[in-house]
């Protein structure tokens, strides 16, 4: 509990740093004493605050989505970007952007979530048809499926001159976050809260179908609830800031090593860890070649693949 509190405080500190990193000169003393010029105040409330909120919301909800997915699929290495979910969400968003460009963002997000759900269902279908003995093959199948869906998406985007948009969706980036353009992410947090409420069900589902049935729960229903949560979060994050790879994989795995998998206990950890991790990566991306920015997806990809490798090698050692 004390450590969790510490992590929470650490994340808050990162959030404060995130508020004051940027090209425009916005400083805390100036804001508090009221001596800051109107422009700085405006930047603070229109850009910095929303960006920091967006980072925390996206980080927490993506990490929770990864956790839920790992429990219901019963594989440590799946998350929306290794199960075809994110790619399907992008395809859905592209399709709805082409066919119904006048729809409100909320409706487009809904279509994107439906595609995400469909893509994930397809992934599970494939897993069922090809029983895999090796836990590492499961995410590989997901990555391949994601590749196929991604190629289809790229083809459509290419033919309709939307490559630039597609690139933006696939490359998570918070530099464009402004007030009025990130609020959908609160819905992601809502999904995270829902996951916390249903935490015990997901833990039971993580014990396997037989245990779930024995304890009187409908396995299928828990599974569907979990996948809906994962799909909505993926779609929300995709349409708001673009997809963030690895996040849903790294944070839950690191938390699992320390506190285990009882979701009632781990969800707060994963939420705080996800928010903190995204904040940290974003700050690094903003500082590394200041005053320019590196998209968070790039920073996350580099850090994430290193941690992923570590986890993979660790598993192999344990298996051997």
């Amino acid at each position: 509990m004390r450590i969790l509190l510490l992590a929470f405080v650490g994340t808050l500190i990162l959030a404060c740093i995130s508020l004051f990193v940027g090209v425009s000169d916005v400083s805390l003393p100036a804001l508090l004493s009221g001596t800051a010029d109107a422009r700085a105040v405006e930047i603070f409330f229109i850009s910095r605050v929303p960006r920091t909120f967006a980072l925390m919301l996206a980080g927490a909800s993506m990490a929770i989505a990864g956790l839920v997915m790992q429990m219901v699929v019963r594989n440590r290495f799946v998350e929306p970007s290794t199960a075809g979910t994110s790619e399907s969400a992008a395809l859905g968003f592209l399709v709805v952007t082409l066919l119904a460009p006048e729809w409100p963002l909320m409706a487009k997000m809904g279509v994107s979530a439906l595609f995400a759900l469909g893509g994930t269902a397809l992934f599970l279908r494939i897993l069922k048809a090809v029983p895999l003995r090796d836990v590492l093959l499961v995410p590989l199948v997901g990555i391949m499926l994601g590749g196929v869906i991604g190629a289809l998406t790229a083809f459509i985007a290419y033919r309709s001159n939307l490559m630039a948009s597609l690139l933006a969706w696939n490359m998570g980036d918070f530099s464009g976050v402004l007030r009025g353009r990130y609020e959908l992410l609160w819905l992601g947090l809502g999904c995270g809260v829902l996951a916390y409420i249903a935490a015990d069900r997901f833990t039971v589902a993580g014990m396997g179908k037989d245990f779930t049935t024995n304890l009187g729960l409908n396995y299928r229903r828990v599974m569907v609830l979990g996948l809906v949560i994962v799909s909505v979060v993926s779609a929300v994050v995709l349409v708001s800031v673009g997809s963030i790879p690895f996040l849903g994989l790294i944070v839950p795995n690191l938390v699992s090593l320390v506190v285990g998998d009882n979701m009632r206990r781990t969800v707060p950890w994963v939420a705080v860890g996800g928010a903190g991790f995204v904040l940290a990566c974003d700050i690094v991306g903003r500082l590394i070649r200041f005053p320019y920015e590196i998209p968070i997806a790039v920073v996350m990809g580099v850090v994430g693949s290193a941690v992923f490798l570590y986890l993979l090698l660790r598993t192999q050692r344990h298996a051997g």
Partner: protein
Amino acid sequence: MIITSDVSKSYGETAVVDGVSLQLPKGGITSIIGPNGAGKSTFLSMISRLMAMDKGSVTVDGLDVAKTSGDVLARRLSILRQDNHMTARLTVHDLVSFGRYPYSKGRLTANDKVHIEEAIGYLDLTALSGRFLDELSGGQRQRAFVAMVLCQDTDYVLLDEPLNNLDMKHAMGMMKLLQRAATELGKTVVLVLHDINFASWYSDYIVAMKHGRVAAQGPVADMIKPEVLSSIYEMDIKVHEIGGQRISVYYG
């Protein structure tokens, strides 16, 4: 009482369980024995609604397992299969606590906590209760699973090969524990057992299966006989009476 009528299951052309109609008595320990591939585990899975039947029906105290809500059944009947691979990293205490899920839905009451501590104590896991399952030996893990099922506190407890992975001491401890659960707490325990001597020593009733059908059934005295066992297992089995218990010898 568990009543099965014409329960069947086939995979493709092969009938794994073929029209089994049985009445398993309430109370005491009933063991299901038989050679590999006799359909024992499949049969147990169907009784406990883990597996759908192709044909037939099962009732537990009058409740049809295919139609009764899972939630209600979970407070009547618990099942532990063999070979449980758990990817979720839970502590022994967490795992056992989930045995109370059918009652508390995750919000443990004081009464639940008593059950949890008791179950952990029964299975001799108190010292290990904070350990993660993936840090335990196979036998310790098996005991943790059984503790969870006992914590579920159901009238009917179904266990598939509960002695898997257990050394002699813990195997005996497990059977004694199940015996106590049957006599003191009035549970009905149904086991799939491979070791016919354990079955002989601890069972009140034995069902022998072969080729997906019931080959013989009855109290121990009628079942643990050379002619019955030899025909079930298709090998030469001698039965000796030692201290009032029937012990089978089949080692060569």
